[in-house]
């Protein structure tokens, strides 16, 4: 109904329209997009006072276009004041580290078109510097949009593209790389990059935002500032995720890509290191980096070594009480080459699954055990089921996060032909994903007094 009326009037989103309802009431406003399709007979307009309202229409309603979007924007631009920069001072000239920001999705910077309410992503180096001028004081900034996807739509082939792009910039001599990424699957991508760069001379920093960048309270600018600072100045050459360290705009944390996990759906400090302290604290306003752990690699210590490629036929399976063994059988029958199990406690699954797991191993599938507890190490020697699983050929995933083990297995299966080599690699620490020692301080305690 609404669509038909609008088509008849030739009205497009952004046009100024007049709606005359069958009861004679008249509404004028700019036509807005409707987020929930055209299911209801309602047209959304923006009134001259800036508010949106929905107007119910029927077949007697008349819609007419008063002004086109182009005309409105032209008039608005004519009366607009000069652009005022956020910071008046210009960054000092002279040599600065070179940092490239690679976009994969999410909006680190955006602009609002108040005339229509549309939020438009901004990603050119110029736009980024306009939105977050602080980064221009730290580094020479370049940027590239690799792709623009929601992070839940991320796939291993995209990891590979990111690895290629980042490798290219490092070869060109950049002093650090920032990868802007949606937060949902950022930890997986971070792990993928960590394994793909077996030799790394500069830091690779993944960054995102938990509050979209169109709002004044967005964490995007703060996180980007911290990320660029890390990429330009950090003494380590590792793959890290840099995000808010607490609800305050005080410091960010640099987490090792293989140790980090999104632990909250919405908080700014959603990202936490598991089974490890963060690698560093970053204070963007103070221009300060406080390293908390001994870096695995120092800046400019290693040559660039890239081992790109991830096996697609790998599954991450969370065990639940009563889980059917058909699920394992299905994966084996479909030619899966690796299965990471997220078992209970020290690394268990219902014992009725053992025959299917044994068959999987016999067919050459690498089966790795991790724990749903997330914190702590799997140990399959303590209880009978664990010992039976070991006997069936399950590889204990040590203290690796299930997601990290999944990415690592996908990577290892592509890099090594020999299954036994893969199994050995899965138990070997490569880039900080496995630690032999856990001290008492790497487990959080709730604030219960």
């Amino acid at each position, binding site marked *: 109904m609404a669509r038909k009326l609008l088509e008849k009037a030739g009205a497009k989103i952004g046009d100024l329209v007049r709606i005359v309802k069958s009861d004679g*009431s008249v509404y004028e406003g700019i036509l*807005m997009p409707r*987020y*929930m399709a055209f299911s*209801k007979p*309602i047209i*959304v307009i923006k*009134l001259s*006072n*800036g*508010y*949106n*309202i*929905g*107007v*119910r229409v029927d077949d007697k309603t008349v819609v007419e276009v008063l002004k086109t979007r182009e005309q409105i924007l032209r008039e*608005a*631009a004519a009366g*607009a*004041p*000069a*652009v*005022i920069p*956020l*910071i*008046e001072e210009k960054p000092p000239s002279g040599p600065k580290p070179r940092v490239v920001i690679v976009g994969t999705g999410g909006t680190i910077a955006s*602009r*609002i*078109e*108040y*005339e229509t*309410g549309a*939020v*438009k992503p901004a990603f050119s180096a110029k736009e980024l510097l*306009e*939105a977050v001028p602080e980064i221009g004081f730290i580094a020479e900034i370049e940027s590239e949009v690799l792709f623009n996807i929601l992070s839940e739509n991320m796939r291993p082939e995209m990891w590979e593209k990111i690895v290629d792009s980042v490798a290219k910039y490092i070869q060109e001599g950049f002093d650090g790389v920032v990868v802007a990424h949606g937060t949902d699957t950022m930890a997986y991508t971070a792990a993928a990059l960590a394994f793909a760069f077996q030799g790394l001379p500069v830091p690779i920093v993944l960054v995102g935002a938990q*509050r979209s960048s*169109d*709002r*004044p*309270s*967005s964490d995007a*600018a*703060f996180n980007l500032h911290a990320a660029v600072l890390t990429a330009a100045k950090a003494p380590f050459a590792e793959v890290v995720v840099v995000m808010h360290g*607490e*609800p*305050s*705009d*005080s410091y960010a944390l640099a987490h090792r890509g293989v140790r980090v996990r999104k632990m909250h*759906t*919405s*908080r*700014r400090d959603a990202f936490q290191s598991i089974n490890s302290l963060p690698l560093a604290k970053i204070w963007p*306003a103070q221009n300060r980096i406080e390293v908390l752990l001994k870096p695995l690699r120092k800046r400019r210590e290693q040559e660039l070594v890239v081992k790109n490629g991830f096996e697609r036929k790998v599954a991450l399976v969370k065990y639940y009480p009563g889980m059917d063994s058909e699920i394992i059988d299905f994966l084996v029958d479909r030619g899966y080459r690796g299965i990471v199990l997220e078992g209970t406690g020290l690394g268990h699954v219902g014992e009725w699954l053992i025959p299917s797991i044994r068959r999987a191993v016999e067919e050459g599938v690498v089966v790795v055990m991790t724990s749903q507890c997330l914190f702590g190490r799997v140990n399959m020697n303590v209880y009978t089921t664990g010992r039976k699983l070991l006997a069936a050929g399950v590889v204990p995933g040590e203290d690796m996060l299930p997601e990290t083990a999944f990415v690592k297995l996908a990577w290892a299966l592509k890099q090594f032909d020999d299954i036994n080599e893969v199994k050995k690699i899965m138990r070997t620490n490569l880039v900080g994903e496995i630690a032999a020692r856990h001290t008492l301080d790497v487990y959080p305690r709730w604030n219960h007094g």
Partner: protein
Amino acid sequence: MVEAKLDVTKYDPRKLGLRVGLEIHQQLDTKHKLFCSCPTKLVEQPPEKPAFARRLRPTRSELGEVDIAALFEWRKGRVYEYYAPDECSCLVEADEEPPHSLNRDALVIGLSIALALNAKPVDEVHVMRKIVIDGSNTTGFQRTAIIALGGYIELPSGKKVRIQTIAIEEDAARKVDERGNSVRFLLDRMGVPLIEISTAPDIETPEEAYETAFIIGQLMRLTGKVKRGIGTIRQDLNVSIKGGVKTEIKGVQRLDLLPKVVLYEAIRQARLLEIREELRKRGISPQDVERESKIVDVTEIFKNTKCRIIKRALSRGGRVYAVKLPGFHGLLGVEVQPGRRFGTELADYARFWGGVGGIFHSDELPGYGISEEELSKVFEVVGARKGVDAVVIVADEPKAARKALEAVIERAKMAIIGIPKETRAALPDGTTKFMRPQPGAARMYPETDIPPVEITDDILAEANKLKPVHPLVKLKELKTKYGLSEQLAQQLLRHVHLDFYEYLAEKYGDKVAPTYIASIFINILRNLEREGVPVENLSENHIEDVVRALAQRKITKDVVPQVLEFLAKNPTKNVEEAIKALGIGAISLEEVEKLVEEAVEALKEEIMSRGMAALSKVMGRVMPVLRGKIEGRVVAEIVKKKISELLEKHR
């Protein structure tokens, strides 16, 4: 020449072509906040420490426009700290969780008020984000939604004042304090639902502004679903006069101040127009100011000054700058509102744009320790002529001082053109001060985290049930239900505490006569106020406590004014403490009987001879002790009983 001294009686707002629109904000009394499940309660004390600190970054529109005031705050490194009491704030207020759906109860209450205002509900409600970057919202915007359009109210004169929009929005956090670069807010109030009612600029006198606000306020209170008490209702105004501009005035909390604020703003605009006329008569153009007003470093002149403010600025490494305002002699001292001079307006600009403490201007000099000699030298150095030009001096850190004087020059230029568009803050004496330049078109964009709500027949039916009754219906109800006289009911109907009265009458009416409760509001409190008792200190809790004490016979009616007076003067004390302090504690019937028995015994002979006629004698003996503790009527009953008992015994 404009008289420097302002005579407010000379200005008739009607003749000035006054136009006023009101924006009334009233908190709704819902169980939960507008976009989360926190209760709409306020805490007495903020928690010990702020929970988190944020900065808010000015957002840029497609056209590159930024919010100037916000930009300044951000550049200054302004930090906002938030107290987050667990009992009434959650991750939503902390901006750490997306908002929940729009509170349906708030929507229904809002629609019921809209219907009573003859407004037309919209078909679908869309929540917007209105950019507000002063820290009072953790998000940097206020969530707001129009729920109805149009409507009107009728003033007693029969004149109609049109309603333009009715919106539901979230209240802001409460500002606690400001120290150095940090502003602290308390999150308890943030998210409490507000209804915002905006009238058309149909109001033409200060009195009409009062009437309009009063009628809308009364109508909202008649729903019984709005919050009461100080801070729960706020009025913003826009005021203009013929030839003036629409000035926004924020935050009038007291209704009785409203006419004064309107009048003073009308006068301010009239005075600014008079100053403009004078400047034009003197032949001063903005170009003259542009050409002649140069900022000059005059630090040397003040090397040995006696002016303490300048001395302190210099000791901190500051410098002194001066600027000439050509042809402005005498005008900076012109009062634009009682106690506020045109120079004060210049100082407001200097403070806002330069962040300086203030300015000195030649119409108030020599003074403040600045000598005639120093002033003459400044005039000389900036090339100003005494008796013709004015000079403005600022002592501060060089960059700040220069910005301040640039702002002063800009403001002076505007004075020749007209009245600048400003947002001003209402002060307790009815005057206003400059807050910020008026932002351009409202910076609004859709709140995509909250789905739109279609206004269905079900919602409208619910709203209709809540729709406040017509004041005449309420009048009849007051008379029949509580037995109030026509006059008392009329007075109560106009009283801001009408719904509170109804609440008390419902709750305590069987123990304390509803007419008496009414007289507390209509007579007792008014008399106390006339006597100069600070009755504005009395909260609703105080009044309810007094009525409850009456119901529980802890006090008697004759001491109610005394108790209220005590509480008004000692608002932190309670009724129990008042009773103790005033020595008016109620007394048990047994004790009264004992006292009466003693008196009867002492007056035995007289009673025996005069019989019941001796009653007044007995009363005269016991009442001095019992006054305030028990009603005379009750004592008389007991005396009567005891006398008859005595007579019986000796018959």
